[in-house]
């Protein structure tokens, strides 16, 4: 299908569903059912099997008509990670059940991966799932869970077989966050607010029908989720030049001449160049992977993005001189969306420290790049062939 055909299809849909006269959710559900939600998804699941590159065509047409959006910023984990994982590993029944409310934003998703004792070494996780008839009983603690307080569902990785080496004994589920035994507590961050949470799971019953992938196959499913996470974090499609936080710095430089000084000028332009080249590198990666699934290449973008965000936000504070000493708001809040652009330089600086930690630390990702892309030898692993229960944890 050509871009023109798709545009025509969207116009026909808009003629039949006036955005101004429709209920927001009804409109979004109808858009999903018409295969115009994510056009590269299969027919019946919000798409029509088109090229991923055609999605912006549909989005632009809807935006021009003033149609309501599915507020993607509220459901980044759902759209960026849960959906591709469900698509890759879900049964037809699961895809039919979960993808529609996920896309419309009716159901926010979060990710129950990390634990107090399992951070970079995610595969050592200890949250246990024990079978009981057609259900599993889950006990354990998860941490660093963004959006857990607003999420309806979660991606959950558990230990189901402690007697085999760690990578083999995990099983992956979709968890109903409203199930009895799920307790969410906010974790206040260095910025003052609480984006993320710790989640306690006590005798939570999960139907076997909510398992993603085979029993014991959880690591492979988790890897799919993580590869998508790095792509989602490392690059946003179609970011314009000076998009993102470099735009805050250039705006200040242009509009507040009293902030300028010659010594910082070359540094500003270094950051400008790095931001522009990162934008181009992301664009090139998308052109290469226009149809394929994200691989470990996204890890490079993520490491570079974190480094740059930290450099720019640090520079931003220094540029602001006296007002760089101020901070806009220390109130403890449970936020749903990270608002980097709307907040002050101090917030951006502090929040950016997390960019090289969340979604895989930059150190771990450099291992991933060097081993999985460059083919260098793996780190020495004493725990590879040891049953999980015998690990020195």
């Amino acid at each position, binding site marked *: 299908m050509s871009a023109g055909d798709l545009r025509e299809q969207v116009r026909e849909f808009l003629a039949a569903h006036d955005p101004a006269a429709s209920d927001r959710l009804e409109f979004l559900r109808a858009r999903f059912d018409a295969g115009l939600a994510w056009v590269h998804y299969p027919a019946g699941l919000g798409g029509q099997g088109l090229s991923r590159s055609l999605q912006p065509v549909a989005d632009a047409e809807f935006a021009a008509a003033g149609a309501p959006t599915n507020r993607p910023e509220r459901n980044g984990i759902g759209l960026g990670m849960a959906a591709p994982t469900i698509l890759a590993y879900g049964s037809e029944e699961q895809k039919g059940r979960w993808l529609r409310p996920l896309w419309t934003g009716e159901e926010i998703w979060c990710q129950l991966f990390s634990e107090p004792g399992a951070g970079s070494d995610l595969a050592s996780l200890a949250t246990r799932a024990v079978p009981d008839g057609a259900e599993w009983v889950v006990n354990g603690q998860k941490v660093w869970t963004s959006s857990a307080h607003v999420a309806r569902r979660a991606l959950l990785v558990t230990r189901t077989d402690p007697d085999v080496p760690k990578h083999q004994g995990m099983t992956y589920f979709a968890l109903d966050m409203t199930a009895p035994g799920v307790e969410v507590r906010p974790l206040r961050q260095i910025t003052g607010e609480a984006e993320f949470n710790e989640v306690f799971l006590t005798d939570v019953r999960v139907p076997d029908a909510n398992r993603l992938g085979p029993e014991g196959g959880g690591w492979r499913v988790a890897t799919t989720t993580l590869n998508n996470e790095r792509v989602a974090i490392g690059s946003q499609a179609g970011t314009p030049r000076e998009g993102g936080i470099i735009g805050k710095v250039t705006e200040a430089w242009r509009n507040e001449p009293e902030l300028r000084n010659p010594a910082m000028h*070359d540094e*500003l*332009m270094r950051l400008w*160049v790095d931001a522009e*080249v990162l934008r*181009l*590198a992301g664009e090139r990666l998308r052109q290469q992977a226009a149809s394929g699934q994200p691989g470990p290449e996204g890890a490079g973008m993520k*490491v570079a993005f974190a480094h740059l965000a930290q450099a720019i936000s640090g520079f931003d504070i220094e540029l602001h001189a006296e007002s760089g000493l101020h901070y806009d708001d220390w109130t403890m809040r449970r936020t749903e969306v990270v608002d980097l652009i709307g907040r002050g330089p101090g917030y951006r600086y502090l929040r950016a420290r997390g960019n090289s930690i969340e979604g895989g630390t930059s150190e771990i990702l450099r291992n991933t790049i*060097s081993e999985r892309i460059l083919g260098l030898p793996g780190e020495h692993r004493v725990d590879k062939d040891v049953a999980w229960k015998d690990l020195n944890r």
Partner: protein
Amino acid sequence: MTTGDLLYSDTEEALRDGVRQLFADRCPPEQVVRAYDPEPQDFSAVWRTLAAEMGVAGLLVPEALGGAGVGAREAAVVMEEIGRAVASVPFLSSAVLATVALLRSGETETVSALAGGELTATLVVPLSTAPGDRVAGVSHGADGLSGSVTSVAGAAQADVLVVPVAGADGLELHTVSRAADGVEVSPLRALDMTRPLANVRFSGVASARVGPAEGSIAEALETGAALLASEQLGVARWCFDTTLSYAKQRKQFGRLIGSYQALKHRLADLWFEVGAATAAARYAADACARGDDASVAAATAQAYCSGIAVHAAEECVQLHGGIGMTWEYPAHLYLKRAKSDQLALGTAYRHRARLAELVELGPI
């Protein structure tokens, strides 16, 4: 401004294969290093094959003037391979700088001969001249051209000198035969002997006036800067590939050195930098070809790729240990080219300053 195609087409890959094969056959590293001998090796036969037989000299020249009429994307691929082989061929000085300057001044005769590889030329400016720099030009009197220009690339390899001349109504472009009476070309000892430099002195030399030079020189330098990013990319790729394979062979303390995290992480960072340099260089070539956002793209690519090439070459020397310091191992050829390329057509500092003006962030 649109972000065009940042990948390589099949045609571009085929061109790359041909050029790579030629350099592998005719100027492998053990030959290239002889550019540093007291009597430097003559690589003109390699250039003749490249320019005339393979038609590479005419990539930027329209078909009507005997060129290939393709454009900057293809020329960039040739530059990548020149960087990858540190080949000593006057492609940048003749097929890019001199050719674009003449083309933009409306010259056709010399351009046709350059496109066909029958003649080789150079633009008589110091190699360190950045796009937008003021070019003084030699003086023009009753007895012809007089004056000297230092650090000119490819002058000794050129048949035709394309000379900026200070005329009564501003800068003009003239052509001069290098063999003409009163032309003295004195080769220099350069940091990078694979891109030979010379001082050129004119003492009452007969010349042919081509036309006004202001815009055409600036455009030639900008095209050169855009394409030099691809040469820097080629240098960086060779250094990265070679260092990576060495890290997979060399053992110390009973382990491959590539198994140590201190080295793995450096190689991971370098891998990303080379990939990002690819995007920057491809964008510069594509923008130059389309004539859209070309100035910003060229300055960005130079500001980024020049440093990446130097970083890659320095890492190559360091991670090879003592071998990297030897004359026998080719790493030094790449380091010298990379460091010299950092100055060629303007340093990264210079390009960032120019970029600031282009995107309305300066001057302060």
